[in-house]
């Protein structure tokens, strides 16, 4: 019977590593359900936890479409060599993460007669088996991520999407160019203010006023454009919004200060 696949945020079972002690009808049906669910969802393998059972069972669909049943599997030996790939899993639908794992592993497991076997796996098969066995021990690949990758993956989880998530935050933005123009304009205003001590011309106050309107306008443009630009990099939104608001307030404060000084002194 095809079962619903357990997905995030259902937590992993705390009844983990529940070894199968007797292969009875319940276990045989469970293995069949896992196979049916793999076929229906076109997956490469499932752990029993992923269809809501606590038993320590993993079923893998091999390339020739036959199934490998692993009862009570354990990873015994691992190589010193590590391998990092982008992994996807049905527990986090639509999401992927960069996971580092052992390149080759040795596994012991039992068959339906509870006879022990061992197998060596490498490459994709080793990765798949490690990911599935993690589930039987109450974990998903989230515990295998590097601290940086974990942070990135948490954002993906929050937005529920892999798409439009850049690998990292850019350090320079287009909005910084607007900021540069604003700053130049304000330097000009300070020069106009100083010039007014040496010149009696009324024109200077007019220039000051027009420039200040320009700076105000640029600040408004900056505020909205920066947010539009920020939305493109969802992995770094929260810090950006604070940054944009702060930058705008500082810029407007400077403008107010210059204009107040200009009003009384010019």
């Amino acid at each position, binding site marked *: 019977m095809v079962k619903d696949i357990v997905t995030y945020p259902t*937590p992993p079972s705390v*009844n*983990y*590593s529940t*070894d199968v002690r007797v292969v009875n009808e319940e276990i045989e049906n469970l293995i069949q359900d896992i196979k049916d669910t793999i076929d229906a969802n076109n997956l490469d393998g499932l752990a029993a936890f992923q269809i809501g059972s*606590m038993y320590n069972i993993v079923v893998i669909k091999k390339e020739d479409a036959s199934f490998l049943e692993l009862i009570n599997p*354990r990873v*015994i*030996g691992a190589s010193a060599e590590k391998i990092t790939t982008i992994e996807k899993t049905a527990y986090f639908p639509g999401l992927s993460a960069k996971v580092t794992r052992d390149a080759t592993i040795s596994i012991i497991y039992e068959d339906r007669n509870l006879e022990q076997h061992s197998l060596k796996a490498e490459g994709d098969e080793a990765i798949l088996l490690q990911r599935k066995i993690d589930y039987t*021990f109450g974990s998903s690949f989230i515990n295998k991520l590097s601290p940086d990758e974990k942070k990135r993956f948490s954002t993906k989880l929050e937005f529920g999407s892999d798409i439009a998530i850049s690998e990292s935050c850019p350090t320079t933005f287009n909005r910084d160019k607007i900021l540069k123009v604003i700053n130049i304009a304000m330097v000009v205003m300070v020069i106009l203010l100083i010039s007014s001590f040496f010149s009696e011309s009324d024109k200077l106050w007019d220039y000051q006023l027009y420039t200040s309107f320009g700076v105000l306008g640029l600040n408004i443009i900056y505020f909205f454009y920066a947010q539009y630009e920020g939305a493109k990099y969802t992995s770094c939104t929260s810090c950006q919004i604070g940054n944009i608001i702060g930058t705008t307030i500082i810029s407007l404060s400077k403008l107010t200060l210059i204009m107040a000084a200009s009003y009384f002194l010019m």
Partner: protein
Amino acid sequence: MARLVVLGGGVSGHTAATFAAKWLGSAHEVVVVTPNSKWNWIPSNIWVGVGQMTAEDVTFDLAPVYAKAGINYKQAKALSINPEGKESSDKPFVTIEYTEAGREGENEEVEYDYLINATGPKLNFGATPGLGEGSQLGEHTVSVCTADHAAHASDELDKCIEKMKAGERQKFLIGTGHGMCTCQGAAFEYIFNIEHELKKAGVRDMADIKWISNESFLGDFGVGGLHMKAMGFAVSSKIFAESLFTERNVDWIIGAHVSKVESGKIEYELLDGSTGEENFNFSMLIPPFAGVGIKAFGKDGSDITDTMFAPNGFLKVDANYGAGAYENWKASDWPKTYQNPTYGNVFACGIAFAPPHPISKPMKSPNGTMIGPTPPRTGMPSGIMGKTVAHSICDRILKGDNAPLHEASMAEMGAACVASAGKGVFSGTAAAMTIYPVVPDFEKYPGTGRDTDYTFGEIGLAGHWIKHILHHLFMYKAKLNPGWTMIPE
């Protein structure tokens, strides 16, 4: 006047003897036969092993404590039990051999009305070639099983630290020295204390540290694993242990039976049948346990050891030894009263009783080598068993032979364990674990056989403080200082 003889003065025997002496008063006699002159709080040996405590800190002389409690103390080892007496007398007795300075080798027959066998295990170093001879530790590795072993381990560790300071790289190999070991927790604790000490000494970058154990997955701890609570999340002990090892750059070999130890090298076999070798400069490998090898004789002098003892040398009690294969194991197989089925006045507690079968799933390599943790029977459960047996015997002595026996099954008992890394007040971290029940009850708790509400671990500094508190509390209690009966087992 009845006489109760207690063989062994460890956690279990000491608890049984001291409670019995208190309950029976001076009207009856309690005799303790133990080859050691000192009592040892074994969990703190880990700190002795890294030089943070001395052997004196974790031991005290038994003689004055027993004198205070009115217990007849014989520093001797038990050789044999004659539960039916001998031809000239029906009175059962044990034969002991003194180990006390000045009386070495002297034999004595001590008659008893009731007998508690709480000898603990023989540290069976001899089971692995090169690990040692019989119960004697060999020259290639160190151990933290006794206070003296731990002090020796600390000296060896200091030598390695000196070498590293002189620029010589050192390899540390810590774990279990045989496929059928228990006490992985102690080795686990020791490896992290070593890592902590090396860091403190500023030589961590000169050391390669590796773990080798007979568990089938990291974080099994000999109890089949448990979930850990940390900052509101539940994570399996496997993931917890793996990340702890990875964080501290400690490598591991799992599912291993150490088959041979040589100078600076071990050979091992894995659960998948493959074999390997590992070099070391410093290695602490826990030995497997066995019975201490007490013989039993019938009235006519015939050897009845097989009747009283299981093949592994532990005393048979009210357990179901015929449970058969793993799938038939039940919680009810485990003993409740710890009474010998043949001789009703003989009991066993602590490590000395023969368990009906392992707790963890038995695992074998394709070559037929058994590799898997044997059931832990130490610490808290040992103390509880000792007190329960003492209670039963006191009732029989005071109320008559038909008094019901008290029960304490390991399938209804919890256990707590604290594994700490480092000893400082603010610098250490520890994993505190509680397990309920010790023996899984698959009928009551489908799945892992354990109550997941009470079976979990927590990580942090608090666990570290608990370990400190426990040390002082249990040393205080064992010395029978005022109020000792108030302190739980």
